[in-house]
């Protein structure tokens, strides 16, 4: 390569300099080295593989945990003129998938879910390509101790071997040193070059406000929004709540444009709402964590947590939507003594109960005895009321214990079965305990008397930088001293003829613009 990296940066993205960490990672990657990149939220991790994808010959494969995140990124890339990118996921229908499979050589960047990488047909296609880089975005998902349990993340090392051991790039904004080690171990990539940067966000102030009960939370938010009409995201833990809160806030602060967003909405509506927010046509979004990872609006000034997530990592991810342009931004967490109730419920529903497990094992024994060796997964799920995460967890355990091989049941002795049931019970208990401990970490952070940024980020790095603006409520934060730039609302008419004219650059509006 005879052109400089800066040349390609400018050519493909229009940016004129690299941000901290990017150039080093990209240089290593282009030399075929495997890397672990830990960089703060919003720092530009995507560029670390998107630029190589354009420069390198061959295909870059990116494993990404959230379908909406993949779709957004591909849309964004296409909008920027990078057409050889595609997202492969369960939303595509059969023919669409086939189309991508058969034309894999025409792409330079393909986003996949970890589950997709277990599809033998897709793997066979991948083997025929030359893979120049294998990326694991949001790599903390790999770790047993990380976000949520996704068994297929644990199989990535086999996939990497299977497709010819390409260089690996693992990226995350929320990985403690333990998790970092775990990522390297799980990917079976001991020779990884580490690019570890501090991941604290020095332009975000942390504020915890304790209110007597939930019903005061919206009052508090409404009052705040009265004084600060800035782009705002409010996190809730249920879809229903986002809808209700949006409606209530709309009556409290009628001059603000408020909408909700969650994973249960129609695809087109989701795109519209997201785009309106990006385009400053909306001021406030009441959302679930589905509106999180990867959302990249530069001027979000305020992120509110109405409900708590289940762990510090998710909290940092969600907070990370704020102030991506570097300006002074605030995270507000609303707390009361019932904080842990909803997250606890969530944790409970993520894992199967002992009773469910025992009944399933009995049922499987029945199947094997009657020489029925295939499992109807949807039948099992409805019969024993497993949700998706629970079933995924159990299926993986059955595979690990050799009760399922290549999707078929295997006959085992009854003493083995007893031992396995016992094992899985123990594992469930252990994971629950672990998750609850992680929740407790977050709760403890809320009640800690020390500096919030220090307490939040110290587990992840050795030193926490001083805040660029205000620090936190324990270091004397006050809203009065926060002076965010208020985004100017464009005045728009409600008259359809005016709207139509300005949309099509006609009439007076247009003359003013061009003269």
């Amino acid at each position, binding site marked *: 390569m005879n052109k400089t990296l800066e040349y390609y940066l400018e050519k493909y993205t229009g940016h004129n300099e690299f941000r901290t960490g990017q150039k080093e990672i990209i240089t290593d990657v282009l030399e075929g080295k495997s890397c672990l990149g830990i960089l703060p939220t919003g720092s530009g991790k995507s560029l670390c593989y998107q630029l190589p994808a354009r420069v390198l010959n061959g295909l870059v494969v990116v494993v990404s945990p959230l379908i909406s995140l993949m779709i957004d990124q591909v*849309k*964004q890339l*296409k*909008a*920027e*003129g990078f057409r050889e990118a595609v997202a492969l996921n369960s939303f595509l229908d059969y023919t669409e998938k086939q189309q991508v499979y058969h034309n894999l050589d025409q792409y330079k960047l393909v986003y996949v879910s970890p589950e997709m990488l277990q599809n033998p047909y897709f793997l066979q296609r991948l083997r025929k390509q030359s893979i120049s880089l294998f990326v694991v975005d949001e790599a903390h998902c790999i770790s047993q101790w990380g976000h949520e349990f996704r068994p297929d993340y644990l199989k990535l090392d086999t996939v990497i071997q299977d497709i010819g051991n390409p260089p690996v790039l693992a990226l995350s904004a929320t990985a403690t040193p333990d998790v970092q080690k775990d990522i390297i171990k799980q990917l079976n990539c001991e020779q990884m070059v580490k690019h570890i940067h501090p991941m604290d966000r020095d332009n975000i102030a942390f504020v915890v406000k304790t209110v007597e009960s939930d019903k005061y939370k919206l009052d508090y938010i409404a009052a705040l929004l009265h004084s600060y009409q800035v782009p705002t995201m409010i996190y809730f833990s249920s879809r229903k709540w986002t809808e209700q809160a949006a409606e209530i806030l*709309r009556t409290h602060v009628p001059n603000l444009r408020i*909408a909700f967003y969650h994973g249960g909405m*129609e695809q*087109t*509506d989701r*795109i*519209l*709402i997201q*785009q*309106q927010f990006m*385009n400053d*046509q909306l001021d406030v979004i009441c959302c679930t964590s589905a509106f999180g990872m990867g959302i990249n609006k530069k001027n979000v000034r305020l992120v509110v947590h109405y409900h708590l997530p289940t762990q510090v990592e998710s909290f940092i991810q969600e907070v990370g939507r704020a102030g991506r342009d570097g300006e002074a931004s605030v995270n507000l967490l609303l707390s009361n003594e019932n904080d842990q109730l909803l997250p606890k419920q969530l944790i409970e529903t993520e894992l199967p109960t002992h009773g469910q497990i025992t009944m399933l094992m009995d049922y499987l024994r029945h199947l094997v005895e009657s020489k029925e060796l295939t499992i109807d997964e949807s039948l099992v799920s409805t019969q024993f009321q497993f949700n998706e995460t629970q079933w995924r967890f159990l299926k993986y355990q059955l595979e690990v214990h050799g009760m399922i091989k290549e999707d078929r049941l295997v006959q085992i002795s009854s003493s083995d079965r007893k031992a396995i049931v016992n094992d899985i019970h123990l594992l469930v208990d252990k994971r629950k305990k672990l998750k609850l401990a992680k929740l407790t970490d977050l709760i403890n952070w809320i009640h800690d008397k020390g500096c919030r940024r220090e307490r939040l980020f110290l587990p992840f790095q050795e030193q926490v930088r001083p805040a660029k603006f205000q620090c936190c409520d324990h270091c004397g934060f006050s809203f009065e001293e926060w002076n965010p730039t208020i985004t100017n609302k464009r005045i728009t008419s*409600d*008259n*359809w*003829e005016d*709207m*139509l*004219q*300005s*949309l*099509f*650059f*006609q009439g007076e509006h247009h003359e003013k613009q061009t003269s």
Partner: protein
Amino acid sequence: MFSLIILDCLMKLRKERTISAIYHLLTGKRSSQTLQDAHMYQLTGYFGLIKSLQRKEFNKCMERMVKNGLISIDNDGVGFPTKKGEDYLITNNQSNILEEFKGMEYEKFAELFSLRLLLLIQTITNKKAESTGFIALTDDKQAQLWVKQLYRKYRHELDQLVTGIYHDLHAFLSKLTDQQASLFVERLTGYEKIGLSKLQLANKYKMNILDIEVWLVYIYHKILTESIHEKDKYPYLTLALEGIMDQTFVTNSATVTYNMLQNGFTIDAIARSRRLKLNTIEDHIVEIAYMDPYFTIGNFVGEAEQKEMLKAIELLQTNRLKLIKTKLNDKFSYFQIRLVLAKHRLEDKGSM
């Protein structure tokens, strides 16, 4: 608006069908029963109006109408308008707005037409503002391809295209009420203006989301009607019609059957070679008889027999298959009766 449609359906169904039939009609269920109902009771206009309508939502709406005293539903699930409902329908449908719905007629292309138009507007207004980084509002490949080709053709006359679409739209929207026109324009996406979602429209205009849904369909059907019949008046809107009005039949499978019939295959031969049930092929033929005015059913029912059946139907004043069949002493199969009904409807329409 949604309740008007329900009331009109109930009136026309004359207590001969349950409210489920309306649900299937509105969601455009491709069963021969639903297709036949649509034709028999002159409800083709509402066929497939809200494909995404959930049963739960539909039921809620029915309950609300019962509570408001507009309709009654008996224990068998058969619904009918109350006196209040009838009056409501008459006062609110004075300008025959309900006639504008052309669900079955436009079913193949209304959606594609609207996607083309929306994407075209998004594309050309962004191009005019020299903005390249916009996210397409639809993933529909057909619509994207068409817009790409059209844009390529007009890229040097972009101003003309933008102004042309504007004038056509303005002329068309001026024929609507202000509120209808606003709904349409608010929904458009362009340069630095993202359209409102249906829920946002419902909030802003204080309407039920189902009403928003059917108003939008109403407007699109009206654009289609206008641009099909007055091509010269809307030269730019008409562009979006290009090549999408060729298919006639509701199911593609029926098209295959149609071609085979034209090539002299018998029903049995078609069923055998396509490995389909005889019933299915018969359904196709009934569908074809509804759709194609030139299709002759002489091969399946003789002239004299047709007359006999028509007489019975007139005598009975009903379209109920079972009654007709019994009246004629089971001389004819259901298939033959359905076929005659299908054909009869068209002859009737033709002689007006």
